[in-house]
């Protein structure tokens, strides 16, 4: 379960930064909100990059399918990227209502996405990838930067 373990840990980290940014924005502490949001956005986009450039290709190569679960995940990543842009605008405008509203949508979208990955996709990766490939994939993901 090395893939699941590593990726789940990243999800939890992103949740932490997200919550900190949301709390700061709700208190109108825009300096702190900007700082935490930047970390959240960076970590999330870097996590997507690890998936799209390393994990998904490895899974697709092993299963011979590019249209299945990885296609779904990439589609949802696009939706999240769009929302990150809008949330950044709300922070720049110091619009607390817009930020909290977007944060609400983001959280539901992101959590249902994470659940699908954790309950199905990562579990499938751990099951179908040979041990050596898993270790290589994990190592490559650790080296991936935004």
């Amino acid at each position, binding site marked *: 379960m090395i893939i699941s373990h590593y990726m789940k840990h990243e999800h939890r980290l992103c949740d932490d930064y997200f*919550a900190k940014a*949301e709390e700061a924005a709700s208190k109108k502490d825009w300096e702190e909100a900007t700082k935490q949001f930047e970390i959240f956005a960076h970590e999330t986009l870097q996590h997507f990059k690890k998936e799209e450039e390393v994990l998904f290709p490895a899974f697709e190569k092993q299963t011979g399918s590019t249209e299945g679960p990885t296609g779904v995940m990439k589609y949802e990543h696009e939706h999240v990227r769009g929302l990150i842009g809008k949330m950044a605008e709300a922070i720049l405008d110091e619009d607390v209502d817009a930020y909290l509203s977007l944060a*609400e*949508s983001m959280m*539901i979208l992101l959590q*249902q996405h994470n659940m699908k990955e954790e309950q199905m996709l990562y*579990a499938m990766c751990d099951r179908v990838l040979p041990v050596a490939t898993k270790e290589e994939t994990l190592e490559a993901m650790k080296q991936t930067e935004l």
Partner: protein
Amino acid sequence: MFSQKGLSLDQAPPISVVFRFFLQGASFGILGGVLLALYQNEIFDPASKGALVLTHVFTLGIMLSVMLAALFQMLPVIAGVKLTSPAKKANWVQYPLIAGILSLLLAFHFGKIAWLYLLASLLLGGSLLFISFEMIKKLLQVPNHTSSSKGITAALFSLAILVIAALYLTATLGGYSEGIHYVQIKTAHYSFGLFGWIAVLIISISFQVIEMFYVTPPYPNFANRYLSNGILFLLAAASILSFFLPDIWMICHLILALLLSIYAIITLKRLSKRKRPVSDATVWFWRLGLGSLIISMLCFALGLFVQTAWIHALAYLFFGAFALSIVFAMFYKIIPFLTWFHLSSQGYFTAPMMHEVIHPKTAKKHFWIHCSMMTAFIMSLIVPQLIVLASLLTVLSFGWMGYQIIHAHLLYVKTQKEGHKFSMNA
């Protein structure tokens, strides 16, 4: 296992399906408030027709309607189940359901009108058995079950069993059967209804949404693995054994009260550990609902030993507070999210944000209306005249809910007509 588009429009039912079932629930809630003014304090006598009518306005009219809205929407997301032609299936269920509920309420009110019981049985039995078996069939084909999808399957089995039990009861009331086992079947009917259907469905959905909406630590394994099926097993065992050991229900109810109290405490603890510290109305609805569940189960357990009318009344009132609070907690997340999500997935960059669909302050106001309504109900056990206030507040509460649905719908239609859209293929 995975649909091609995840939480996409291909997978979700048309938004109108969800809106319609929620609006149906709100309309029956308003009707319930009006009927309360008619029956007044009679509803606290379990043997009265007022109690029978109001109980079914609550369980069938309000709870079943919103639970169907939630199931149509959440089965694809939570369990990866795709219902084919959801709009058509919703029609097959919704119209007979409304007609069936109204027939049943009239049958209870007037009593002894055999054809009304027959009509209600045909309409409700047909539509509910159809949709529960349809959903169970799809759920049983899911290869990777989560605790939520397992729990929803258990809840749907309970729904089917309670409907079959109800058919026996209405056949007896309509004079079509002698009803030799009426007492046992009636206990099984309401036990499956309150515990197996309403409580298990809420529990199963909470396993997913508490973590998803509030980012909490996961539920302990014993809860999300065994609770839903454990409740179903207990109910099934007690139903069978009650034909030989009539007192078995007492033990079963005591265990169920304990299990549901433990569940409520575990969930309250998860909420207190949530990572998102922002506390909106939905968090308060959950807290109120879970607190009410604990009080309800305490009164329910006490009522097994003490035959005091007000303890029984409190058990049912707080159970109602539990179920309705959770419904509102879900409602204020689902309606704004779906409105935004459907429009934004259709490419409208002018899609209203969640707070523009329903502002958190609006939800908070409803929370206070709901609290006042529950207080008026409880206080009317001491000051009977307050039941009129409870009736007015019930109408206000469900009127408020209905208005939010209509407002969201109008906003949705307006954005589709006037909103700016970009094409993903451009």
